[in-house]
Each structure stands twice: as structure tokens, then as C-alpha cells.
């Protein structure tokens, strides 16, 4: 896409300064000449990924990540029909906060995943291992995103894996949350298929795990 870097830069600046009006104008300008899926793939996702990386290395604050994801999700919802952005080969996705009530991370990931053109079900926060496993099996989910802020919740992901394995279906788990940032070894202790270091990384991981 022509001038994609310029548009990315302008959109990122607008999102980081929480200037929703400017961000909206940039996207409205783009959409007059560019297909919606290309706006998402070439502009929105790279910008969200860049903002996510910025948070990981301390250049961006969580409020900015949250506002950027929320804006993109809302813009997509209001500017177009949802169906325009649903990827054809989308796996069945769900997200939950396991035995933990800190739902901001889930909310951010949910916004970003939706902003990336995926449909995703929200199974809520504070859900127990057994309830979550049952829900995932019942809804025939392919990839489950698990958000956890507290160490004990992260450690429960292994129990969740065991419960899911009993279903006989290979359900993939993507885990994420603050404890992983503080200990790289934690990834190896958890039976997740992938761990996301920031919310924006999730889209790439979904694509990788689903082979899309």
C-alpha cells in the first residue's frame, strides 16, 4: 500500500496523544481510497503492534495502549458492518481472565483482536478452571486466550490445560499477563502453546497458530 508508513506514523501519533478526532480523520481519509481489510492489515495492526511493543519496553503507558485498542475497535464497529472485517479463515476464538478479576488486559486484547478483523467471544473474568474448560469445549473453541495478572492464576493454566485435554480436542492456549514480563522462565513452566508479551503480539500468534 502506498504511503503506508506515513499513515502509520500519523495514526500512531494521534492514538498516543489520545486524539480520537484526528485518528478518525486519518482513517476516514484512508478508507475513501483503500479497501477496509487493507486498512486493517497495513495500517491499524502494525500501529497497534508498535504501540504494544512500546509498552513492553517502557516508552508507552497502559492508558495509551487501552485507548488505542478501544478506539480501533469502536471505529471498526461504527464505521462499517462487522462482516467486512471478519477474516474468512478465522479460527473460533475466546478470551477469559482465569480465576482473577483484573480484566483490563482482557479488554485490551479483545479490542485489538477485534480490530485485527477476528471475531472473539468474551468468557469474562474470575472464571474457574472447570467452568472455563467446560465453556471452551461447549463452544467448540479453537484458540483460547488466557489473561492473568496474578502469579497464582498463571500457575493454574496447567490445570486448565489438563481439563481441556480431557475433551480430546487439541485446543490451543495463548497466555499473557504481567507475571510473564517479570520472569521469562515462567513461559516454560506453563503448558500454553504461546505466550504474548504484549496485547498486540496476539494477532501474529493467532495467525501463526491457525496457519493463516
Amino acid at each position, binding site marked *: 500500500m502506498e504511503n503506508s508508513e506515513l499513515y502509520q506514523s500519523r495514526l500512531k501519533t494521534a492514538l498516543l496523544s*489520545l486524539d480520537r478526532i484526528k485518528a478518525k480523520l486519518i482513517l476516514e481519509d484512508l478508507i475513501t481510497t483503500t479497501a477496509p481489510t487493507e486498512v486493517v492489515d497495513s495500517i491499524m495492526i502494525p500501529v497497534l503492534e508498535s504501540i504494544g511493543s512500546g*509498552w513492553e519496553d*517502557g516508552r*508507552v*503507558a*497502559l*492508558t*495509551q495502549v*487501552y*485507548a488505542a485498542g478501544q478506539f480501533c475497535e469502536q471505529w471498526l464497529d461504527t464505521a462499517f458492518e462487522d462482516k467486512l472485517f471478519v477474516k474468512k479463515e478465522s479460527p473460533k476464538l475466546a478470551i477469559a481472565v482465569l*480465576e*482473577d*478479576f*483484573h*480484566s*483490563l488486559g482482557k*479488554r485490551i486484547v479483545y479490542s485489538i483482536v477485534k480490530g485485527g478483523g477476528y471475531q472473539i467471544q468474551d468468557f469474562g473474568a*474470575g472464571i474457574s478452571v472447570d467452568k472455563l474448560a467446560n465453556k471452551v469445549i461447549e463452544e467448540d473453541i479453537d484458540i483460547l486466550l488466557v489473561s492473568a495478572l*496474578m*502469579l*497464582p*492464576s498463571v*500457575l493454574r493454566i496447567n490445570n486448565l490445560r489438563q481439563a481441556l485435554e480431557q475433551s480430546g480436542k487439541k485446543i490451543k492456549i495463548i497466555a499473557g499477563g*504481567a*507475571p510473564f*514480563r*517479570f*520472569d521469562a*522462565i*515462567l513461559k516454560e513452566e506453563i503448558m500454553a502453546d504461546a505466550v504474548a508479551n504484549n496485547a498486540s503480539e496476539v494477532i501474529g500468534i493467532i495467525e501463526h497458530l491457525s496457519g493463516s
Partner: protein
Amino acid sequence: MNSMERVLATLSQNEPDRVPLFLLVSMHGAKELGLSIQEYFQKGEQVADGQLRMLKKFGHDCLYNFFYASLETEAMGGQSIFRKNGPPNSGAPIIRNFEDIEILELPRPEDSPRLLEVLKATRLMKEAVGDTVPIIGVVMSPFSLPVMQMGFERYFDLIFQYHVLFQRLMALNEEFCVAWANAQLEAGASAICYYDPVASSTITFRDDYIKNGFDVDKRTISRIKGPTAIHMASGRCLSILDLLAQTGTTMVGVSAEEDLKEIKDQSKLNILGNLNGIRMRNWNADQAEANVKAAIRAAGSGGGFILADNHGEIPWQIQEETLLSISKAVRQWGKYPLRWIHETTE
């Protein structure tokens, strides 16, 4: 030197006999008494007993009256949801809609049976140690408390979209925070750990902190009748160190994600930190020693430094042996003068 003398010396930017160690253990007291976490925190006398036992066992330099973070919202009508192997979660928010803030009233600390247990624990600890060991009290900052009062997402929307209601909530929280901090000081706490993770640059952009949280912190800390340590609870603070120094606090609790030496070089404040509490669960004695040495090397010179974890609450999963190894390493490598830091480079 006793613990109080050691801590006071370092807070005056002088080198005491050794680097002070604050093992901010709360839940481990339940293990000491053979109780569940939920049972343990029901009675102030149990918490005092647990703290005194841990002080004796680990030989560190403070007592800590902290129960758990959601205690304050419990006092405001909220609930805590306990688990067996970690701190309780805050239950349903007490502020469910923005309009709730218009009619919100917060209790006086002395009217809350749960907070009275903390004051009881503080008094009992004070009776036991007098002025020989600092007793650290805890408050949630007015700027950070709303995360538990209404949830992160709604709070972010409040800050950026509902300024009048945000200001009202800050005013209510300030009054509560000041009263609660001063009640703990009156009961015997030597200083207040003022938890303010939302102020950290991990969560809030510097300009937004200046706009929304900085004045709240300045006003609140100025009314607390004792020394405070502003603690980021694992959040980053390098980019706001200059602002934190203007709040009137005497110390900052810093993240394991930041370079302790850089913080020390740039900060006018005393430093509390920054052992990684999550990694700590896998440390053997050698790793505990190496991490203690690294922290002391980075920030020990000249005083102004207390070794602690980076979050202000050592996870339940940390083994007693690890805490003993940390304590031993501080005794071995924390003795002033710290000549060894110039002799080796490991």
C-alpha cells in the same frame, strides 16, 4: 545498630552498619500460624503474631501491617475473594456506574471493623518492639484506589472523559487516605507505604500523571503526619522521578524492570527495591546471593537504600529457604563500607 537506627541512618543518606532489608512478607504469616490466608487475616492479633515470628526467623528490618490490597474497598462495602495460594481479589466494584460517584460516601477508618483489625495489629507490634524496629503501614493512593473501587477500564474512562466526577472521587479518596494513614501512624506505624501503581509510567503517561495524579499525590502526602514511601508496585518510575520527589515523599519503591543504578543516580529520593518477586520463587541460595549482591552494588553506596522486593508483597509461592538466603546474603554483602563493590565486577 538496631533496625530502626539502621533505617533512619540510611534514610538520612548515611551509611549504617549494613544495608537494611525489608522483607515485605504478608501472607507468609499464615504459614507460620498454620492457618489459611483467609483465616489468618481475620484477626489483628494473628497478623501481629505472624509478623513478629517472621521478624525473628528472617532477621530483617521491619514489621509490615499490610493485610491485602482489597481491604480498603472492603471497608467501603466491597468484598474480597480469597484463594488458597495468593492474595485475595477485589470482588464486584463498589462503583458500578459513573453516577454512583455523585452519591458516594466513604467511611471513617475507625468505623470499619476490618480496618480496626489492622490498627490492633499495629498496636500489638508496637508494644512488642517499641522503637527498635520500624512498623510499616500501608495505604492505597487516592489516584490508584479507583482501580479496585470501579475497575481499571471504567476508571480510565472516568479520568479522560468525566473530569468533574473524577475530581469528586479524588476528593473523597484523599480524605479517606489521609485519615487512614494517620490512624495507622497514631496506632504505632513508623512510616506509610503509599501504593500508587497507577502513577507509574507503566500505566500512566507522564503528561497525564501531571494533569491528573500529581497534585492529588502532593496534597495527600503533605497531610500524612509521618514519613511516606511512594511505591509503584512493580510499575516503572524513572520518567517521573523528578515529580515523585516533589510530592514530599522520602522514598520510592521501584520496579525490577528498571535499572537500579540509573534510578539511584537520577533520584533525590531514597530507594526501596527491587528484587524480582516473581523470579524469586525459583532462586536457589546462590541465585539469591547473586541478586542481593547486584542490587547492593547498584544502589547501596552512600546509604539511601533499603533492599526489598519490587512489588511490596512477596508472593506466597516463595519458599522460606529463599527468604533466609536473601537475609544471609545481606548480612554477608551488605556490611558498610561496601569495599567489595570496587574490587569485583561479577
